[in-house]
């Protein structure tokens, strides 16, 4: 069905959902964008920063991002704020009260949820936030809708004087589909008029605002009844109510033989529209990823659609899962999906037949050359209790490093270490460290460090300063000295910051100097006062920015097979470049070889090799 070349002239552009969100903001006249990086939301601001008409920033955390956003919106400029689902936990404080004050110019909050936990510590369903904060929620299903819904969200925001949540999921954020591009429409800055009754939330003012919020919800529910965001497609005896990416899966699985109510606005819900739809079909299914959000509303209205009695509330609702849950529905249509698919096995065991041996998994690992590898090797050797945090270094928890005891949320490491010390005593704290990355420390570690000092703790804190925000794809942060746009800015002085909050023992070390690093660690653990060890070595993948020195690449190392004894000491660092090879004829010793295609020549294994079999190629 190829189109001819004339039609190609109006070719559309392929974009991820995140790129389309940034484009939509630009077209809708947004002037301020703020975010903290977090998968799957990160690329929104990275793309926004490429449009020079918009100011974009990496904020130190999501709460600050939303506060910058609300200031911009109250100040009269259209605003976009973006974060991953758990980021909204951090930003929840301003969000709930912003709902009371309302905005001046439009504000859209992008919440990028992560069903399936591709890169997250939980799979919370942030639609509950929209409901709890009493603000509308829009859920796009592809990149075109991402672009369009940003504009609609800003218009709704202004018309109803409310922040609007645009809820993405990983598959919407990271899928590419075709988008029609438009031009930017400049929106003049709204007038700024001082209005304490609206924007100063003293109890007396808040009490006057709350009824306005409730009335706003009623009006939004009326809007939802006729909004083009919600639409009915197809015609059949079976009815399906769905939203977000699940809409695309439902279309794929069931084709056009079912009645489909696609909800682009999932809060507040259009009760009349949904009631009519349910009454127009024989059986109704609510197919939504994660929690029964739409379903619970419908049940509260007295209907009993199928929902979480059939479809799992855990993980992604992939096409094969949907098909397997309702095989009778699938068979009635011309859908091409195999109904034999077993959702329980789809992620964990992809082997070809039941009796085939289980394949070794491939968990993520620290990259070749990663500075964190040395840190966790030493922590493992010293058998320390490690209070961990969120970042690439969380991978230090995995074999063979196995050097992390807890990881809960951004910034938890230092407070958790203090809590362990208060519960188990100072002797326990002598074998306990908090480990946190540079960006995470600025995000929400600094307040806990203040707590350590203030409440007379003895916590030893390791700040792993690799000069970037690694896991999310190498974003700038206040410790790197560069902005999202690559401009040079003031670089936080971490030792000075630790000193300013009252830490007296501050040491800077290179983790690849294993002996010195170990010595420093032992010394600081022994003393009964707070210590901060700043472990400095840049990420090997740090982004080249003008003005920043690149990490010098070194030739890969190699193994002198005559010297290798097969002791496997080097394998304890968990480097993906070091592999055991088959023994030579007549020998049982499995020696080690280096995968030169991956090796960055960091040399960590060289310093560990007792027989000195691992050598630098340049001698």
């Amino acid at each position: 069905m190829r189109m001819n070349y004339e039609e190609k002239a109006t070719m559309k552009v392929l974009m991820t959902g995140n790129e389309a969100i940034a484009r939509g903001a630009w077209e809708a006249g947004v002037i301020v964008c703020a975010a903290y990086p977090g998968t799957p939301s990160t690329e929104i601001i990275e793309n926004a920063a490429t449009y020079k008409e918009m100011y974009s920033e990496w904020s130190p955390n999501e709460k600050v991002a939303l506060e910058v956003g609300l200031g911009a919106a109250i100040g009269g400029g259209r605003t976009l704020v973006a974060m991953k689902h758990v980021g909204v936990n951090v930003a929840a404080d301003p969000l709930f009260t912003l709902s009371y004050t309302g905005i001046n110019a439009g504000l859209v909050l992008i919440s990028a949820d992560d069903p399936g936990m591709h890169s997250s510590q939980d799979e919370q369903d942030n639609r509950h936030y929209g409901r709890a904060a009493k603000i509308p929620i829009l859920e796009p299903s592809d990149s075109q809708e991402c672009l369009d819904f940003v504009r609609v969200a800003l218009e709704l925001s202004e018309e109803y004087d409310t922040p609007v949540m645009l809820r993405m999921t990983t598959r919407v954020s990271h899928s590419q589909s075709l988008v029609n591009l438009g031009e930017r429409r400049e929106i003049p800055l709204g007038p700024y008029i001082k209005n304490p009754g609206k924007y100063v939330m003293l109890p007396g003012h808040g009490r006057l605002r709350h009824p306005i919020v409730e009335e706003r919800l009623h009006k939004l529910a009326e809007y939802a009844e006729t909004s083009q965001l919600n639409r009915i497609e197809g015609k059949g005896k079976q009815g399906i109510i769905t939203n977000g990416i699940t809409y695309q899966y439902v279309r794929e699985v069931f084709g056009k033989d079912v009645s489909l109510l696609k909800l682009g606005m999932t809060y507040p819900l259009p009760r009349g529209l949904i009631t009519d739809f349910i009454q127009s079909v024989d059986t109704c299914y609510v197919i939504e990823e994660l929690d029964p959000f739409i379903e619970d509303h419908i049940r509260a209205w007295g209907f009993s659609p199928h929902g979480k009695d059939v479809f799992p509330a855990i993980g992604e609702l992939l096409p094969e899962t949907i098909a397997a849950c309702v095989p009778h529905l699938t068979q009635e249509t011309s859908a091409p999906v195999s109904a034999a698919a077993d959702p329980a096995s789809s992620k964990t065991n992809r082997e070809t037949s039941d009796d085939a041996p289980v394949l070794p998994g491939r968990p993520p690992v620290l990259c070749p050359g990663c500075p964190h590898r040395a840190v966790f090797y030493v922590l493992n050797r010293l058998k320390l209790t490690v209070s961990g945090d969120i970042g690439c270094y969380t991978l230090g928890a995995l074999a063979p490093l196995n050097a992390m005891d807890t990881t809960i949320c951004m910034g938890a490491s230092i407070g958790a270490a203090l809590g362990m010390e208060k519960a188990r005593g100072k002797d326990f704290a002598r074998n306990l460290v908090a480990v946190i990355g540079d960006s995470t420390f600025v995000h929400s570690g600094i307040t806990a460090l203040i707590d350590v000092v203030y409440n007379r703790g003895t916590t030893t804190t390791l700040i792993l300063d690799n000069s970037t925000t690694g896991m999310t794809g190498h974003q700038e942060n206040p410790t790197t000295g560069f902005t999202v746009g690559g401009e040079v800015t003031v670089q936080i002085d971490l030792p000075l910051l630790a000193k300013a909050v009252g830490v007296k023992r501050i040491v800077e070390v290179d983790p690849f100097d294993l002996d010195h690093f170990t010595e420093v660690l032992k010394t600081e653990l022994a003393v009964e006062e707070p210590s901060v060890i700043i472990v400095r070595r840049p990420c090997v993948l740090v982004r080249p920015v003008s003005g920043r020195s690149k990490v010098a690449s070194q030739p890969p190392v190699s193994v002198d097979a005559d010297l290798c004894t097969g002791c496997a000491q080097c394998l304890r660092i968990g480097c993906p470049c070091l592999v055991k090879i088959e023994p030579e004829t007549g020998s049982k010793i499995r020696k080690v070889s280096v995968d030169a295609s991956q090796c960055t020549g960091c040399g960590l294994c060289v310093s560990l090799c007792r027989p000195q079999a691992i050598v630098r190629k340049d001698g």
Partner: protein
Amino acid sequence: MTMNNGQLPEPQSILIVGVGGQGTIFASRILAGVAVREAYDVKVSETHGMAQRGGSVVTQVRFGSEVASPIIALGQADIILGFEKLETLRWLPYAKDDGIILYNTQTINPMPVITGAANYPSDAGSRIQARFPQAVPVDALSLAQKCGTAKAVNVVLLGLLSRFLSLDEGVWLDILRETVPQRLLEANLAAFQAGREA
């Protein structure tokens, strides 16, 4: 082996699997770029974040007159393009019964194998061939190295893939020229041809 006779059903679903860092996302973007230039409806789904750190990664490309889901359901891939042997084996159940399997014979040991907790399935290749006798193995790493850069493994594999899709060769080359940095272009164009002739 080529099916360049317009008999493939629409939409086409191509699953690209490999190890984080092998360039699967770049490959999917080239393929998607070609399909867009050929005026198809196109959807792509990528893996970002933690899985990119050396984990098992999968990228999905679907194109046709109209595409709904960006995700390929179990048993519905027309083609699996495998960048690594174990990953190819792992994702085989996503192929249609008559699916086309194209895979790089390179092996990259996952961490459980490096630590000794598991063994790399030494019979991975034969298990792939047993399930899909028509599967096409290719030593993409050697071919890429011959073309001047080991990093062009992904473009070798795209060259191989291009033989099985009714997308114009000239458009493939156009998109490569527009996407690959100038200093790497010659090696990558050679890699594409090497894959196409493999």
